[in-house]
């Protein structure tokens, strides 16, 4: 006993309506498989461990918290030592005249020749 194709199509239509599927008897490519794919971006971007909070961040958040920085202490100690030996950084120049003294030591530019 054979059943007409139109009857089967009707059955399929009803089936698709009930189970909320897309009715596509010609099997045209609608690209729905792209929409069905899950987004993998969040899991891909979470591959490397992220930096959470560092001591530096903590210090910025709570400036009155008593913390220490070994590298900074070492640097300050070194600076103090150099200053006692007279090898410290020069004093900051306050005016333009003071800073020009250094310029005078440089080679003066050659004056252009008269025509």
């Amino acid at each position, binding site marked *: 006993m054979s059943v007409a194709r139109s009857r089967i199509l009707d059955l399929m239509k009803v089936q698709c309506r009930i189970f909320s599927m897309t009715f596509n008897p010609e099997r*045209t*490519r*609608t*690209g729905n*498989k*792209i*929409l069905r*794919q899950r*987004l*993998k*971006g*969040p899991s*891909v*971007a979470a*591959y*490397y*461990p*992220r*930096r*959470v909070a560092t001591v530096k961040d903590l210090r910025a958040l709570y400036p009155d918290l008593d913390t220490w920085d070994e590298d900074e202490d070492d640097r300050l100690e070194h600076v103090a030592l150099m200053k006692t030996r007279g090898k410290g950084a020069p004093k900051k120049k306050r005016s333009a005249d003071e800073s020009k003294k250094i310029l005078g030591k440089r080679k003066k530019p050659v004056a252009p020749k008269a025509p």
Partner: protein
Amino acid sequence: MAQFRAKKLDLSCFVNARVIRDHTKRKVFEQYETQRQALRYIIRNTTLPPRARAQAQLQLSQMHAYTRSTQINNRCIEGGKSRGVFRHFRMARYPFRMNALEGNIPGVKKASW
């Protein structure tokens, strides 16, 4: 590419230029994934007008290389190596062995029979 790179380093694993580059690519891919999928849907959908599909093809091919998932490569979080990296442990074979023997990786034990 510099325009995508984070201004401040946000990694706490081993860091070198290649790790930072790969991390940047991952973040860019995450950002543009929906756009790429939408374009891919338009291209695959044969019920849409051919002109729109061709335009979508052009747009997808002109997107930046960093938005592509094939640019991403798993690297070792202990040494930044790209080869011999176990996906599950995110580590190359040698750091994995060292950590496993030290007992730092839960559930991993040297086989012996």
